[in-house]
């Protein structure tokens, strides 16, 4: 039963790598227009879950639907249409190192084959402006860029086709606090301007608190909590207590528990 309100719907999902069980019976619904933060310890399968949502890996059992359609096992044309509605920001940017910044952002637009070069040029410059990259960097190669710039350009590429659904894998990992704050602001602005649904896997508590409407916590192979921050921190689970109410957590979240 596909829920119309769910942009991404995960049902009864199990993931096993050999004998190693990563997920057990995960159920999740990402609503239209929200930012869902995926949280979990290292190796608890945040990235694995995201890869399954993207259709890069197949779950051992269970289904993942994006825009109401199963991610895998569709005919190619339909799958392509779904993929054009999604943007992905990979952890390390995954810019094509053989292409310049300009061509990296123009690539998904060119692949559509409906836009002419002049429109592509205008759109690329718009996207670059959106992520605050000066036009003179457009001709540079990814190897010549700093980590923060790579992240921002990768975001511009993810946004190239104005997707409705955006996946962010560790959007602020590897950025210094100032840059990561800038990045959070950038995503907030984009949300205000466009109706975006965002699924975000992150370790960074500050990013999570600043951006996420709801938080899904993965621990011990299951989803132990799902809801707004205030609800999640009330959950009595060692991982949540550690994560949100540790030294760092208290500073960011404030008074973390009433009890």
């Amino acid at each position, binding site marked *: 039963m596909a829920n119309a309100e769910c942009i991404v719907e995960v049902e009864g999902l199990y993931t096993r790598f050999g004998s190693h069980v990563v997920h057990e019976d995960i159920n999740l619904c990402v609503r239209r227009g929200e930012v869902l933060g995926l949280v979990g310890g290292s190796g608890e399968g945040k990235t694995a879950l995201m890869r399954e949502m993207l259709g890069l890996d197949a779950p051992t059992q269970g289904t993942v639907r994006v825009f109401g359609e199963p991610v895998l096992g569709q005919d190619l044309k339909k799958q392509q249409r779904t993929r054009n509605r999604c943007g992905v920001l990979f952890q390390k940017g995954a810019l094509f*190192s053989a292409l310049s910044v300009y061509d990296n952002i123009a690539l998904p637009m060119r692949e559509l084959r409906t836009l*002419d070069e002049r429109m592509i040029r205008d759109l690329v410059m718009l996207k670059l402006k959106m992520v605050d990259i000066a036009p003179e960097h457009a001709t540079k190669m990814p190897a010549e860029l700093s980590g923060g710039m790579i992240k921002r350009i990768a975001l511009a590429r993810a946004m190239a086709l104005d997707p409705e659904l955006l996946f962010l894998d560790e959007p602020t990992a590897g950025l210094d606090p100032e840059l990561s704050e800038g990045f959070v602001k950038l995503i907030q602005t984009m949300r205000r301007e466009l109706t975006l649904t965002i699924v975000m896997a992150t370790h960074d508590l500050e990013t999570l608190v600043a951006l996420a409407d709801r938080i899904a916590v993965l621990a011990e192979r299951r989803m132990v909590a799902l809801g707004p921050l205030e609800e999640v921190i009330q959950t009595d689970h060692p991982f949540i207590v550690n994560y949100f109410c540790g030294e760092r957590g208290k500073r960011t979240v404030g008074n973390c528990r009433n009890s």
Partner: protein
Amino acid sequence: MEPENKGSTSSIVWRHITDADGMHHLVLSGSLTLAALGQRLQLVLNDLSAFKNERDLRWDLTQLTQLDDAGVVLIWRAWGEHRPKYLQLQPDHERFFSRMEKMPPPAPQVRRSWLWPITVQGKAAFLLWEHFIGLLTLSGQLSLDIKYLASHPARIPWREISANLYRTGAQALGITALVGFLIGIVLSYLSSRQLQTYGADVFIINILGISIVRELGPMLAAILVAGRSGSSMTAQLGVMRVTEELDALTVMGIPHSLRLVLPKVMALGIAMPLVVLWTSAVALLGGMVISEIQLGLSYQFFLSKLPDSVPIANLWLGLGKGMVCGMAISLISCQFGLRIKSNTESLGDGTTNSVVTAITVVIIIDAIFAVVFSNVGLR
């Protein structure tokens, strides 16, 4: 108000209206987004551009349900890249258009100088020189490493050497055997036909023996190993550059030449003569089988006659060639691998160039051997 002109695609609708005061309005409604427009984008652009020259047209975009960057760029171009005189917008959409107005001009294209044929040649020449110097430096560094290892035998990287021996030697046995066997068959088959017409059947042993042991065995093995192991060495070092593993080794104080290059060069220097021996043996076997079938020379006769017709110097020459070629292949592959920059294109280019260069150098070495040892082992 009467709609006079109505354009429609499935997503975007526009109505051309003349109101009571005789003013012309163009009201756009629906969604003007990349996803909604799809294939009809150019059509919509052409249709809307038709209104460009109506200076007093009042554009009304307040009824749009969805708008994205692509839609904004489209309508901006339909206006002729400036705001129309009369425009009504949703407050939300205002910033899209103000951003278009503030958009910086694209960076100018880099022009090619008319001297480019000369600069390209010059750069290629410099690159060749750089590689030559790089190879020289690398060999020099290796000699220093060997000197160092001679006084510190505990630091000899045995594990790496044996791993490389296995990868470049043992794992190459299958393919070199197959190719060697087939070449032996071909050579024997073609020569036996010619020799039969002169009744000189026995000389098949001389032809096969000299050509395979002295020339074909070493060359086949060297070219196959250059393609097989050379490319993998270059790619390995290249990927280590891309993933910053080389830098990690440097900061740990582990020199690349000692831990990465030296084991490869030593391993291939040891493995190549053995592979050459193997390839020659299998090729001779192939030739022997065919001479038995074609000419009726028994295996026993073939084997007993072989040492008489092929002086042993040829074997040493072949093995020596193998060793030199092996070391040259690994040196060249490592030199190219270490020069790879951290992007995928450089990785691909580096691997291709490394294999091409290694094979060329192998043939050059062969030619040098042929000239220098022209009166060794031949009667």
